[in-house]
C-alpha cells in the first residue's frame, strides 16, 4: 500500500519544551487517519510540520512524497488544508472564494470554471453562488471549505477540527463527504474532539505530552483497553502528566 504521510521520530523543541517527541507513523493512500489528543498534547505542532509550515528539530517526515525540511513549497502545493479557524473569506462570495483558491493553487481558468460548476452542483449551492460566504449557515461553509481544500485534487487533506458547532445531521453529511473522498483514494488526516468521529476513522493515534501513546484501529484500541467506546480509550490515555 502506498504511504502518503510518513513520520519517523519527528520532533519539535521550543527551547527546553518538547512539543512533539519522536512521533513515528505512516498513513496509507485512501485512509481516514484520526489524529487525537488533549488540548496542548502537540497535535497542532505536528500538523504544522507535516504541512510544511514549521521546520522540525529532528527526525524525518515525507508528505505526498516530499521532504518536510527541503521541499516545503512542494508540500504546500500538493496538500489540502482546512481548519475551523482559517478557511474561507467571509466577505467574498461562494464563487469568488472558489476562484481565489483555484488561482492560489495554480489552476488554469478553464479548470477553475469547471471546478466551480462541479462544486456548486455537488453541494447544491447554485442559488447562493453570488452570495457572501458570511451569510451562509455554518454547515454549508464547512462543506464548501472542504471542497475548496480539494480543488487541486491533493493526495492528502489535513482537517483541523472541521466539524465544530454544527447540528448532528450536518456533521454526518460532512462525514459522508470524507468517506466519499477516501473511497476515491484521497488520504484524510483529521483532528476532532468528537469521540464518535474517532470511531469513523480507519485508524487513530492518540498523542499525550508530545508522544504518540496509542495507534491502531478503533476496534482494536477498544479491545486493548477493555472499554466500550473511543471516549473510554481517550479518557484512560489522554490526561497525561501535563497540567497546562
Amino acid at each position: 500500500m502506498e504511504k502518503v504521510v510518513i513520520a519517523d521520530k519527528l520532533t519539535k523543541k521550543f527551547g527546553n519544551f518538547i512539543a512533539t517527541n519522536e512521533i513515528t507513523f505512516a498513513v496509507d493512500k485512501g485512509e481516514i487517519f484520526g489524529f487525537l489528543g488533549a488540548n496542548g498534547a502537540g497535535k497542532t505542532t505536528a500538523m504544522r510540520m507535516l504541512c510544511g509550515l514549521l521546520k522540525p528539530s529532528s527526525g524525518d517526515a515525507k508528505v505526498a512524497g516530499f521532504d518536510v525540511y527541503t521541499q516545503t513549497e512542494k508540500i504546500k502545493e500538493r496538500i489540502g488544508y482546512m481548519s475551523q479557524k482559517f478557511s474561507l473569506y467571509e466577505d467574498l462570495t461562494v464563487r469568488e472564494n472558489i476562484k481565489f483558491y483555484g488561482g492560489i493553487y495554480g489552476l488554469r481558468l478553464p479548470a477553475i470554471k469547471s471546478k466551480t460548476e462541479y462544486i456548486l452542483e455537488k453541494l447544491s449551492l447554485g442559488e447562493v453562488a453570488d452570495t457572501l460566504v458570511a451569510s451562509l449557515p455554518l454547515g454549508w461553509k464547512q462543506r464548501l471549505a472542504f471542497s475548496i481544500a480539494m480543488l487541486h485534487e491533493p493526495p492528502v487533506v489535513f482537517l483541523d477540527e472541521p466539524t465544530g458547532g454544527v447540528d448532528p445531521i450536518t456533521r454526518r453529511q460532512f462525514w459522508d463527504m470524507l468517506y466519499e473522498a477516501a473511497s476515491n483514494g484521497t488520504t484524510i488526516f483529521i483532528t476532532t474532539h468528537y469521540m464518535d468521529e474517532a470511531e469513523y476513522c480507519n485508524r487513530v493515534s492518540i498523542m499525550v505530552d508530545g508522544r504518540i501513546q496509542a495507534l491502531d484501529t478503533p476496534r482494536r484500541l477498544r479491545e486493548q483497553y477493555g472499554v466500550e467506546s473511543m471516549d473510554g480509550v481517550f479518557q484512560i490515555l489522554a490526561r497525561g502528566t501535563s497540567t497546562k
Partner: protein
Amino acid sequence: MIAIEVISKTYASARALQQVSFEVQKGELFGLIGPDGAGKTTLFKILVTLLLPDAGKATVAGFDVVKDYKMLRTITGYMPGRFSLYQDLTVGENLQFFASVFGTSIEANYALIADIYTQLEPFKNRRAGNLSGGMKQKLALCCALIHKPEVLFLDEPTTGVDAVSRKEFWEMLGRLKNRGLTILVSTPYMDEAVLCDRIALIQNGTILAIDTPEGITTHFTKPLLAIRGADTYRLIKDLRTAPFTHTCYAFGEYLHLTLKSESVDRTYIEAFLQQKQHRQIEMHPISPTVEDTFMSLMDRQ
C-alpha cells in the same frame, strides 16, 4: 428560578428565537442543547439583561429581565461563549477585578471557587491570554462565580475543549449544583445532555422538546437498529436506498438504522444485505440516544 414566557427575538432578517417558553427550577442543572445558530446565545443574552426581547417576558429569581436588570445582574453569574476575560491581566488580576466590580473580595467567597481555583493557582501570575483552552475555561468559571451568584448562565463552556477537560468541567458543575446553585448551561455536544437534570433541545430558534434526558428519548417513536459490517461506507450507501429505511446515520462504531415501521422483519434486512454482498453483518435493536432523538425531531421539523 428561571421563567421564560413566549420570548421572541428577530435580528434584521433572521428570526433568532420564536416563542420560546420553559422554566428552570431552583437547584436544577438545566441544559440547552443545540447547534450553532440555534438561538442559544440570544436567549442567554436576554436572560442576563444584555439584550431586549421583541416579545415575551422572562424572570430570573423573580426579577424581570427588562425592568429589574440592576438587581438581576447582582445575583447572576454569566460565562459567555467567547472568552471575554482580560487577556493582558494575569489570572489573579482578572479574578480580583471581577470581585471588586461586584463589591466583594476573593477571600469572602473563596470557598465557592476553591475546588476550581486550586487547579489554576500554579499559573496565577500568568496572563490570561497565555493560558490553554481548558485553563481559560476554568478561570472564566471562577470569575462568573466570585460574587456568589444564585443562578449561573454558562454559554457553551465546553466548545472546542478536549473530551477529558469536558468531563472534568461537568464534574465541577455537578459539585456546584450540590451547593444549591441553579445552572443553565448550553452545549452543542449531545453526549453532555445526559449529565443534566433536564434538557431543552433547540434548533432554528424553536424548542423541539423539553424533558429529562431519559424522558426526551420517548419522543423518538420509530424502531431503531444498530448495524455494522466490513465496509461501512458501502453499507451506509446501500442502507439509505433500502425500501425499509427511514434514515441511516453513522453513530460511532455502528450505523443507526431507523426503520419505516415495526413490521419490517430482521431476516428481510439480512437478506437485503446479503444480496448486496455485505460481510460480517452484525445488528441488534437499541434504545435511542438524545442525539438520535434530536435528529428525528429535526427531521420532523
